[in-house]
């Protein structure tokens, strides 16, 4: 292997642009990135807690006024940057948002998916272990009906290691640590294979397979009827009613609108730093408007059709209203395994299909979390995929091991989920909207978006993107901070593990900033040499 110096590595390399092979490929990849536990488990919980069917009014408002416009913004900014050979959040946002702001917000666009990946890969591991258990013979929750919930909770605690720190290195080491290594290696391998041969190829069969698994589970759930004739109220129709019967009085409650906006925001993966990278591999004439809308729509189908019909309905039929409530993990990993035990011969196939669905949803999401950092390191290191993936592994694996080790009460996981997976994405999405609407200019931005678009962005979105989305986003963020921030700050102060986890995230950010400066120096060198963007692109691209 030759040891070219950094600039030479760029000049001498047979640098080739990575591209998506097909339009459907990128849409499936983005939709796969967005579809996850949030759609299938978090969404029905939000519907039940926020007025049932009435929740869908603020939900669709948020979809139209926040989700879709921000998705258009991200796709457009990314393609704009990609045309200049820029694929990392740092260089795309630096191109539009100015060097200093772009540097820090761009680094945030790399940190967010990377830090989320550190805990998300563990959830992926849980899904794989549950799916494997069902394939190999089912999950034994005992014959005693009353004890099944407790045994399901114990099983989840064993799988996640939430009983004690280091639990996954003890008796569960082979399964816990082994699965983690396997999943981590699979993710890194697929990302190393590149966009079209790795992520796109995987998502093109994974997404239809996810839909198939979901349809199998949905068909079984909707044909459950009334399993216990002595309790006729616990029926499929009763479960659907529990979820969808609207409580219109809740529409006057600001927290419902806040919850709907939050759900749309997290569900569509806007502000995660993923689309800003994925869409940068589009070609100039690729239709970002239709592609973004299609990805949002596919995500919505999974959320409303499968999330809105499967989990809560199934849990209600067997466990009643109390079993149908609970957090994402409680509903997905505790209530549903109990529900599956009531299905007799269907327990294994339905359990396997459900957790395979969750695993596939998780893996398509986790791949999307690694690609932005890979592109970032490729820009910093001059295009080598192998070195970028090695560096990515060197950052992601220790961070993820930290979360795996400090598993007691899932504190490390929750800390990253709140501060990075929730607070930071609001900040990044806000910066992107400001970049598009105010720095690039909304008219120029819309012109850019409509380039090559069969479906033009309606003119009303000029106003929405410039004024409504930033205000809506700001209001949601402020409301969110007022509701959740004080509690989290108190928790942070009282939990050393949470503080240390934040320090790990800060260290990761500092390490990323070091590489950000390398990227800046490379681009400055190209500018000094007077290269046009296309020439510079050929020297920095992978």
């Amino acid at each position, binding site marked *: *292997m030759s040891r070219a110096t950094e600039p030479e590595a760029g000049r001498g390399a*047979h640098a*080739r*642009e990575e591209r998506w092979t097909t339009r459907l490929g990128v849409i499936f990849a983005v939709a796969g990135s967005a579809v996850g536990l949030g759609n299938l488990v978090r969404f029905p919980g939000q519907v039940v807690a926020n007025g049932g*069917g009435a929740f869908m009014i603020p939900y669709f408002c948020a979809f139209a006024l926040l989700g879709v416009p921000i998705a258009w913004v991200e796709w457009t900014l990314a393609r704009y940057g990609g045309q200049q050979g820029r694929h990392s959040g740092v260089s795309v946002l630096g191109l539009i948002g100015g060097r200093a702001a772009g540097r820090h917000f761009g680094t945030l666009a790399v940190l967010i998916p990377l830090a989320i990946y550190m805990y998300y890969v563990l959830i992926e591991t849980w899904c794989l272990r549950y799916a494997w258990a069902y394939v190999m013979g089912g999950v034994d929750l005992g014959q005693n009906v009353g004890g099944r919930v407790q045994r399901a909770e114990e099983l989840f605690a064993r799988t996640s290691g939430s009983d004690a720190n280091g639990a996954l290195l003890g008796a569960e080491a082979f399964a816990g640590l082994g699965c983690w290594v396997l999943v981590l290696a699979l993710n890194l391998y697929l990302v190393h294979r590149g*966009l*079209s041969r790795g992520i796109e190829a995987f998502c093109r069969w994974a997404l239809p397979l996810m839909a198939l698994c979901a349809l199998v589970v949905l068909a079984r759930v909707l044909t459950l009827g009334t399993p216990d004739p002595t309790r006729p109220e616990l029926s499929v129709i009763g479960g*659907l009613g529990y979820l969808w*019967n609207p409580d219109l009085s809740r529409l006057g409650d600001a927290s419902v609108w806040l919850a709907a906006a939050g759900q749309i925001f997290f569900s569509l993966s806007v502000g995660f730093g993923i689309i800003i990278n994925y869409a940068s591999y589009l070609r100039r004439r690729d239709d970002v408007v239709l592609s973004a809308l*299609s990805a949002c729509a596919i995500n919505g189908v999974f959320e409303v059709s499968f999330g809105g019909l499967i989990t809560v309905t199934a849990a209600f039929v067997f466990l009643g209203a109390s079993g149908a409530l609970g957090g994402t993990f409680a509903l997905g990993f505790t209530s549903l395994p109990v529900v599956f035990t009531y299905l007799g011969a269907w327990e294994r196939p339905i359990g396997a299909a459900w957790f395979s669905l969750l695993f596939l949803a998780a893996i398509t999401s986790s791949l999307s979390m690694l690609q932005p950092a890979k592109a970032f390191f490729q820009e910093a290191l001059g295009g080598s995929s192998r070195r970028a993936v090695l560096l990515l592994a060197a950052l992601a694996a220790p961070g993820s091991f930290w979360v795996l080790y400090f598993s007691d009460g899932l504190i490390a996981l929750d800390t990253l989920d709140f501060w990075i997976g929730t607070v930071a994405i609001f900040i990044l999405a806000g910066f992107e909207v400001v970049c598009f609407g105010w720095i690039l200019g909304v008219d120029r931005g819309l012109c850019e978006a409509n380039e090559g678009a069969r479906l033009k962005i309606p003119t009303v979105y000029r106003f929405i993107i410039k004024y409504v989305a930033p205000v809506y986003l700001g209001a949601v963020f402020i409301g969110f901070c007022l509701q959740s921030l004080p509690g989290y700050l108190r928790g942070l102060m009282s939990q050393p593990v949470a503080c240390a986890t934040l320090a790990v995230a800060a260290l990761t950010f500092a390490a990323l900033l070091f590489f950000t400066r390398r990227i800046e120096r490379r681009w400055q060198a190209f500018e000094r040499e007077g290269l046009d963007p296309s020439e510079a692109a050929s020297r920095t691209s992978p």
Partner: protein
Amino acid sequence: MTAAGWIFMSASLALMWGLSAWCFYLLSSSPAEDSPAGESARPGHTSSRPEQVEDIDGN
């Protein structure tokens, strides 16, 4: 399940499925994509092959 529940559920499902179907109709009826292998985004681009191609170092 009340009538309002049915209406909200059906309308939500119809909206999402309708939007998806419309998007796929537009995607499938739009002109065929250029062959990525032969397409170049603009002059100066080295290549836009679909597969990732390693650099000269074999990386």
